[in-house]
Structures are given as C-alpha cells and as structure tokens.
C-alpha cells in the first residue's frame, strides 16, 4: 500500500470511532441542512434553477478556451496583468516573482482553496515572507498550523474552548470563550496586518468572461479589506471558475450561498476588474490575476467526467456525505475532501495513488442528489474505480471475481455453494473474531448472517 491509502485508512479508523466528533459534526451539519432547505425552497423553482446552472456551466466549460481569452482580454484592457500557470509550481513562481519585484515583506490573504492546492503559504514562508490568513476560520487553522477541515468551513471541527485556548496561547486573549469577543480579538490583530501588508492576495468564486471581472463572495468583509488596502493585489483562480455573462451571477451567487452556507446570499459580493483608476479613492495600484490549470485540462479531456469542472466549491456534497461526516475533512489528506475531492484528486494528483478515495464510498448518491450544478459524482467514483482497474488490475480481486463467475455461472457448481457455506459456518466459531478469521473485516464489528437451512432455490425445486 502506498502512503496516502495507509494514512487514510488509519485515520478513518480513529475518527469514525470518535463519538464526540460524530456528534459534533452531525449537529453542525443538521443545522446547515435546515437553513439550506429553507433557502432552496425560497427559489421560485429550485430544480429549474439547478438545471439552468448546470447548463450554464456546461456552456462555460465546453467553450473554456474562448471564455478564458475573453476574460483575459477584458481584464488587460483595464490594466490588469493576467498570468497563465500550467502547474502549481509555475503559479508559485509567478506569485513569488510579483512579491520580489514589489520588494514586499508581508502578504495578507483572503480565503482561497487554490492557494492550498498549490501550497502557497509554505512556499512564501520558506522564502521568508510573512503570510496572514484574514478569513476567521482560515486564521484559526493557520494559528494551529493545520489545513482547512472543510472547503467552506475551515475550522468547523473546533469547539469554542479549543479556540479560546488557541487565542490565549497565541494572542494572549485571556479566558473568554464568547464568540463575539474572540472575533474581536482576531479583528484587532488582523486590522493591523491589513495596514502593514504590501500585497493583498485573494481567491475567486467566479470570473466573468463578458466583462472581465473577478467575483468574490464572503461574509466577513476581509476580502474587501485585502483587496482595498495593500498597494498590490493578486488573485489566483482555477480556470474552471469562468462564467460567460455578468447576468449569470444573478443565479450563481444565491445558488452558491444556499448550497454553501445555507444563506440566501452572502453578506459581501464584490466584483474586481482592475487596479485603481485615476480619481478612485481606494483599491490597489497594481492588479495581477493568475489563471491556474494544474491538470484541470486533464479533466476537460475526459468527456465522461468533464462535468467535474462545473464545481463551484460550495461544499454541499461534503455536508451530505456519510463518509465525510464520519471520517472528517483531515482524513482525506487532500485539498478538496468529500465526494468532489474523491472524484477530482485522482485526476489532479494521480489515479493509482488516490484511487482509494473512490473506493471509500458506499455509492449512496447523496452527493449527486445535492450538487447544485448536477455533477454526476457517485457515477464518477465508479468510473474512477473502473479506470484504475483497467490501468492496473488488482489481481486478488480480479481472480476472486473470475472464480466467482466460474462457480456462479454453472448451476452444478453453484449447487455446492450453500452446502459448503453451511460447513464453513459450522467451523467458523473456531477462528471467528481472530486474525485468522477470513471474514475478520466483517466480524470485527458485526455478526454474520446464517446460510438458510433451505435456500430459495431448494424451496422452489421442492414445490415441483
């Protein structure tokens, strides 16, 4: 077994048995489900909205080349520098180069999963720059030197007491665990950082090809401060974030808010098009947009799974996924966890090394059912399994199934199955529950069903 699968299995074994974690996550996500459903019902016709969103993303992705060129041209017309990065390494180099040219020391960041994807913070810190996350959840996990637990709720795994202890240890905040007071502690720290920062770094929720604009949606106003105060602004986004028209936001902003946090709309929705223009009172003097591929074009090249690029990173599939709810976000060991992560990580980081995520699913389909842009997630997990097996067969399973076929296709041999099964079950108690038990994976936590005294076939024949 390679390292990621071992790490996943051992951590999943621990977290899935952690009853405090189970209770906590279930409660949080059940509360989310209530507001999500309330706001989905507030759409005049939610199924039609979902269908329209899927079709708009289909259009955006199937003409990605055209939309990206349009986006870049319009952005450049306003004086924005547009950079194209094929890999994470290229994106890091582009961003480092901007920072060095500006003689910058410190960078303030708003939430960007793409920056997690390319491990930007580590790269910048390694070069001696100060990087501060300004989204409250991201700020908390950064202080804990952790990765985000969830793509929308980075610190949802932490309880008040843990944040109190963390803030007290790192920021001398005392013993308060009042959420408002804790937020004010973070705010006092962050306000200074915005003023000191040389570079404001953001992600993006959407990019509008028609007008050449970057759309950022948030609840804390931190992205606005990140964009408005430092002299230089850098935005990193995946190429799949593009939408054809400005009016598409009328659908996508409420859809993202509803699926993401269960809000009708997030508090701050802003469009950025370029650097500060003459007579404008605020905004950056220089604006850079970095468009990241990082193997997204591999997904684009796969007609079966191309719709995985529809993803708007709302996290709805994580929230309903019983695997995510039981193993938690960190167990995946990936930037994108939950069903969408299990689908795309094998494309982004290698099928053989990450195929276990596609197998770690009961294929319940709750993800497909909830996805606001209708990505066929559960079936993509099946396709990843097929592709992985075609590329590199798992011989024990393949031989097992071949043997099963040999027996199950021959009534004369199948006749022996219940007979041998009954003998096997009579002998089973000798090894049951021990490591010698061939059914240990089952009997470790469950009792086995009994082979019937009379099978259906035996009964049917007996009827004559």
């Amino acid at each position, binding site marked *: 077994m390679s390292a990621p699968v071992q790490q996943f299995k051992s951590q999943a074994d621990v977290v899935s048995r952690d009853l405090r974690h189970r209770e906590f996550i279930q409660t949080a996500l059940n509360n989310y489900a209530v507001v999500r459903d309330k706001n989905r019902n507030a759409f005049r016709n939610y199924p039609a909205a979902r269908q329209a969103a899927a079709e708009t993303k289909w259009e955006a992705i199937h003409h990605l080349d055209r939309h990206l060129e349009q986006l870049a041209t319009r952005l450049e017309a306003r004086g924005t520098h547009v950079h194209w990065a094929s890999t994470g390494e290229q994106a890091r180099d582009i961003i480092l180069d901007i920072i060095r040219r500006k003689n910058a020391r410190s960078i303030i960041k708003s939430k960007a999963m793409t920056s997690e994807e390319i491990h930007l913070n580590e790269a910048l810190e390694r070069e001696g720059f100060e990087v501060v996350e300004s989204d409250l959840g991201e700020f908390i996990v950064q202080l804990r030197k952790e990765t985000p637990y969830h793509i929308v709720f980075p610190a949802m795994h932490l309880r008040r007491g843990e944040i109190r202890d963390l803030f007290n240890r790192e920021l001398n905040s005392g013993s308060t665990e009042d959420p408002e007071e804790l937020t004010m502690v973070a705010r006092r720290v962050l306000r200074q950082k915005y003023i000191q920062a040389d570079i404001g770094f953001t992600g993006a929720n959407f990019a509008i090809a028609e007008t050449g604009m970057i759309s950022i949606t948030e609840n804390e106003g931190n992205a606005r401060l990140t964009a408005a105060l430092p002299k230089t602004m850098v935005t990193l986004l995946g190429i799949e974030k593009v939408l054809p028209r400005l009016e598409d936001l009328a659908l996508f902003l409420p859809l993202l808010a509803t699926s993401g946090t269960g809000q009708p709309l997030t508090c701050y929705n802003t469009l950025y098009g370029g650097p500060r223009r003459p007579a404008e009172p605020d905004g950056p003097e220089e604006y850079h947009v970095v468009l990241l591929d990082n193997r997204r074009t591999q997904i684009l090249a796969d007609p079966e799974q191309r719709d995985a690029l529809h993803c708007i990173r709302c996290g709805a599939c994580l929230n309903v996924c*019983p695997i995510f709810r*039981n193993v938690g976000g960190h167990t995946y060991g990936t930037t994108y966890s939950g069903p969408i992560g299990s689908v795309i990580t094998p494309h982004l980081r290698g099928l053989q090394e990450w195929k276990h995520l596609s197998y770690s699913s009961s*294929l319940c389909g709750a993800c497909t059912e909830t996805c606001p842009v209708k990505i066929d997630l559960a079936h993509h997990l099946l396709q990843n399994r*097929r592709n992985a*097996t075609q590329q590199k067969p798992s011989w024990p399973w393949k031989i097992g199934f071949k043997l099963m076929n040999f027996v199950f296709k021959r009534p004369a041999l199948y006749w022996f199955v219940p007979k041998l*099964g009954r003998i096997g079950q009579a002998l089973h108690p000798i090894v049951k529950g021990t490591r010698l038990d061939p059914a240990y994976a089952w009997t470790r936590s*469950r*009792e086995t069903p009994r082979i019937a005294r009379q099978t259906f076939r035996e009964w*049917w024949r007996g009827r004559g």
Partner: protein
Amino acid sequence: MTVTLFIPCFVDLLYPQVGISMVRILEKLGHKVDFPEQLTCCGQPAFNSGCWDEARGLAEPVLTRLRNADVVVIASGSCGAMLKVFYPQLFAGTHHESAAKALSAKCYEFSDFLVTKLGVTDVGASFPAKVTYHDGCHGLRELHIKDAPRALLSRVRGLELVEMQEEVCCGFGGTFAVKFPMISTAMGEVKCSQALATGAEYIVSSDSSCLMHVQGLIDRQGLKLKTIHLAEVLAS
C-alpha cells in the same frame, strides 16, 4: 401476467423467506411466477469494484435469459439498479447495448412493481407493530423509489410507520463494508441510532443487503431493534 423473478444470490442463500414471500404475494394477486434458476448474481460486486469485464461475464447470461421475459421483478433495490441503470452503462458501446436497454425498460423493483405497474397498495397484510422504513440508497437515488414502499406499508393492518430523521446510507455499500469496515460500521451505528430514536420495533427495507449489515450490528451490540424485509411484512 407472467412475472419473471430475479432472486439475488444473498436472498437465495441467506434470506429465502424474502423470495418466498414475493412468490406468495404475486401468486395471491393472480400472477404466474417464473424463476430462472440459472441466474444467480447480477454482477454488481465486480462492477462496483471496477472489474467491468468480470461484471459483464455474469451480466451476459442475465441479458440472454431475460430477453423474452414480459416483466422482470428484482428482489432488491440495489440489484434492481444494477439491471435497470448500470447494465446500459456496462454494455455501452458493445453489441449487447440494445439488449441492456430493452431489459432496463422492463425491470421493476418489487415494491415499485406492485404500486406503479400493478396499481396495488393493499395486499391484505396484517403486521401489528411500530416500524420505520429504511430507503436503500440505490432504490432511492438510482431508481427514485420513495413513495411506493410507504404506500404499501400504509395499508398494512395494525402497522404504524414512523420516519427517521433523514435518508442516510446504512453503510453497507457492498465490498465497501469489508474494504473500509470501520467507516461502514460508524455509518451503521448512525442508522441504528436514528431508528432507535423513532421508537420503532422494526427497521423495514426493500434491500436485504442493507438489513444484513444493520442486523449484524444490532446482534453484536445487543440493540432493541429487529429488521425485516418489506415483502415479509406484506406476506404476513
């Protein structure tokens, strides 16, 4: 009409009463039942494991044998989804593609067959107990069956149906249950606790495979719950 019954391997070997109940109900409703004895497994374990060649090996005889059937009733939502939804995917681009599509069109899960095809909701059953219904995920989200089993249960004398908090997977998932046993077990525990919270005596389902997993947990943990297949309730 003649109803061709597809009995999955685990129903044959472990839960024959489910198949027997279906035969009795269908015959009571005046239909002739045909059971193709040479068909044992739909191939779903291999399919879900990514071994599509091996899955086709088991699925081809199913296509051939069921070619002339009028209607096929499958004694499991999961195997039903395999025949109805996944065979057309499995055989896409092969010379069996049209046969797979033709079979798909005449396949029904048992409860769906009674309610949608036959228009029957009252089969004259009596089962005086408080029960909750577990939707097997393939029946619910691949076949989109939600109302049919509830319509049938609502006409069972003495039966009180109480719903669980949410439609969540029981954690069986075929080979998933042994590849990731602890995740599967945790999911089963969540299911059991939701069923217990309803105060029901029984978890009823249209999938014996889900119930095998849940009953295995109930027995190991000594929970005050029982499991029973919908067909057995309807045959009472």
